[in-house]
């Protein structure tokens, strides 16, 4: 077992990223998607650092009366600076979404690969269990968990990650099923390579195409999900600045002070469109490569 670390170090999971990414970035829509995503990401990541310095206020500081024009984009329902809150409100959303996606991917991929590789009864058991989870609406499950456990960050991440996992497991299972019939898997079995290592070094690198697409898709969903839960009051709690929460707080004065809603909505929309474009072109790039590989 002393070879374990060595192997993992030797075989990075994504064996040929430059070529796949290069192919992806050749498409104009990928460039557009990249720009949109990066702009929002920059706002969200750098925003918290900029707040008092650029806008003169922190996100929770009262600057004036509610719904006035003070500052660049006015004030919100409690008289806080909208721009400051906007800059401060993206980071948590994106971090939570990313963590939830990562959790979902790890669990889903592990479960899906195990099911496909084991086959037979184990496969049936895992996938039927999966079906039960799939039958629960994601939102209802999330509402239930948050009501029971309270609206904390880790609960959000775990709940969203867990609800993603069965969907990712399905995709992984079908991608794995296509790969495990190949002779190189049989060759590894012949050399008695441990099963987990076969999955990690032989199977995983060959299903990165569909998985990358799934990753992008789940990231998009997670962003929407976190925002939606915050909007419903089950995600981030006041007085935290958060885009989802901002939409909820400011929607009562949409006509008087539209910026409180428009800014976060636009940011979420642009981010979602951007990641979708990226995912889409990634799907195309990976499909192209698969065609080229098949001979």
């Amino acid at each position, binding site marked *: 077992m002393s070879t374990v670390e060595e192997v993992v170090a030797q075989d990075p999971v994504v064996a040929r990223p430059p070529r796949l990414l290069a192919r992806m970035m050749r498409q104009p829509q990928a460039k557009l998607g990249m720009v949109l995503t990066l702009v929002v990401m920059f706002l969200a990541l750098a925003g918290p650092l900029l707040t008092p310095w650029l806008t003169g206020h922190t996100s929770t500081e009262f600057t004036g009366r509610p719904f006035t024009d003070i500052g660049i984009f006015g004030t919100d329902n409690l008289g806080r600076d909208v721009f400051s809150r906007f800059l401060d409100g993206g980071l948590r959303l994106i971090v939570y979404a990313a963590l939830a996606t990562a959790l979902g991917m790890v669990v889903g991929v592990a479960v899906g690969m195990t099911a496909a590789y084991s086959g037979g009864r184990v496969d049936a058991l895992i996938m039927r269990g999966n079906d039960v989870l799939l039958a629960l609406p994601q939102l209802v499950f999330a509402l239930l968990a948050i009501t029971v456990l309270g609206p904390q960050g880790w609960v959000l991440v775990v709940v969203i990650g867990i609800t993603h996992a069965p969907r990712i497991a399905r995709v992984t299972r079908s991608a794995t099923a296509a790969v495990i019939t190949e002779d190189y898997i049989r060759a590894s079995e012949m*050399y008695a390579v441990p099963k987990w290592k076969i999955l990690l070094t032989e199977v995983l690198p060959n299903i990165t195409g569909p998985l990358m697409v799934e990753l992008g898709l789940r990231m998009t969903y997670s962003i929407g999900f976190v925002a939606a839960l915050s909007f419903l009051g089950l995600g981030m709690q006041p007085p935290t600045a958060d885009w989802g929460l901002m939409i909820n707080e400011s929607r009562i004065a949409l006509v008087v002070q539209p910026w409180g809603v428009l800014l976060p909505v636009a940011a979420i929309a642009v981010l979602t469109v951007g990641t979708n474009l990226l995912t889409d072109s990634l799907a195309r790039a990976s499909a192209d490569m698969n065609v080229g*590989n098949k001979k």
Partner: protein
Amino acid sequence: MTTNTMDHDSVASALCATDVRVQTDAGVEILHGVSFTLQPGRILALVGESGSGKTTAGLACMGHFRQGLAKGTGTVHLGDGEMGNILELPAAQLRGLRGKTISYVPQDPALSLNPSMRIGEQITETLRVHRVGATDAERRLRVTEVLAEVGLANDPAYQRRYPHQLSGGQQQRVGIAMAFACRPSVIVLDEPTTGLDVTTQAVVLRTIDELAARHQVAGLYITHDLAVVAEIADEVAVMLEGDIVEHGATDQVLFAPQHSYTRRLLAAVPDLAGKRRVGQVEAITGEQPLIVPGPHGIPDSTSTTPLVDDAKLLPGTMPRTTPADTAAETTPLLRLRDLSLSYGQHKVLDGIDFQLREGESMMLLGESGSGKTTLSRCVAGLNDAYTGSIELFGEQLATGTRSRSSEDRRRIQYVFQSPFSSLNPRRTIAESVGVPLQMSGINDKHRRRMLVLEALDQVRLGERFMDRRPGDLSGGERQRAAIARALVNAPSLLVCDEITSALDVSVQASILDLLRTLQTDHNMSMLFVTHNIALARHISQRLAVLQKGKIVDFGTTDDVLNNPQHSYTQELLANVPAFD
């Protein structure tokens, strides 16, 4: 050969292709001005290795270009030329032409027939689309007629079968019936017998030959198999990298080849008689010391001098001096006793007994479905569902690889059929080849790399291949890499499962060459599984013929080939296509 064209149409050609050039979308020319004419009732064989452009040329005759290819230039005229240049026809007119005037028989009938449609209905559909026959009754009559022509039953019950209810050979004959149904003037056959075993192949070839002659159809037969060419073609055009390098009557091209490439290609074809020398190294059949075979399945441990050096020599080869230690060896390297395996009621392997000595090479011959791959996988431990015993050096092996000791795993190595599937596309050659070393506990990276390099040198790949990935390698190079993976641990027994069937003849020759060298240099035993009986004298000293999970003929290669005992072996031998 010219006599049968003296009928009504001896001067007019059925199809005339002139200076056909095809480029890829990227602008690389892959067909450099190919010209040929097809005459009614005669078959032109387009011969070449993979990538030579033979299929591209064949499809160009029908005005079709595969994805990634730009439309070709040049002219293709049909018969009297009133249709104009096929390459410039609009798609609608081409559709009318294809299937009616020019028809096509693809390589794999299992993929070309619609699995959800009854075969009678499929043929009728072709007729209906091309408005052959005024009524459905008339068309049904034609279907009955063509099915009879290709030697299939033509009763309504048979016509109501689905493709999956037919064997591969029958499916291919349905494909041919469909191609002949509209009475085309030209038929393009793209390796129609490649996936079939020799017996079926012989039937299909005869059918094509008869039909072409009877209906005065001009045939373009695309193939890489020169032996098939000798059976069926009147003329041969040899293609090399998008050019026709030699063109002439079959007899002339095959027996008095002008171009050096044709000569090389011919030299690479293994022949049953073993007269031709495939590759650089002498055939091992007679060169190696041969052990007297005991009675079928019974170990001949009583024999004290198990060697004959002179009995099986080819003329002109010198007996090899036998190492003394080989003579002292009495336990066979591998012994199979009553090996059986069944899936439910179906017996895949039915009591297999044989043994293999050290340094000996045995061919396991059988058609698809005979259980030969299953047998070889049982030996390698990839299939652990068998009963009976497999002994290595007199010790019984555990059934599956995971329960075998690492030393046992090292001793038996298995090479897979398809080099396109046996190497992980995401790992470098060095990584793939290093896996067996890693699993037998060699953790030092430098040492491993040295051993990998050594193995790659043995298969003549060298250091520059180490960090490449399978996608950058040709089929032959990949198969060499796969063999290197098997050799890296210095095995005692190499199990080769149809390792040359996916490769071109010249590549096959070099692989055979390699295996022979390895066998003599390392005194390694080999179990060579194949359906190609013509390879027998080029690779093996012993021959076991497998039919329906039973060994029906067993003995030294020469014994079995010269004096086949079982009717199945006799039939196989009678159907081997050959050109001398």
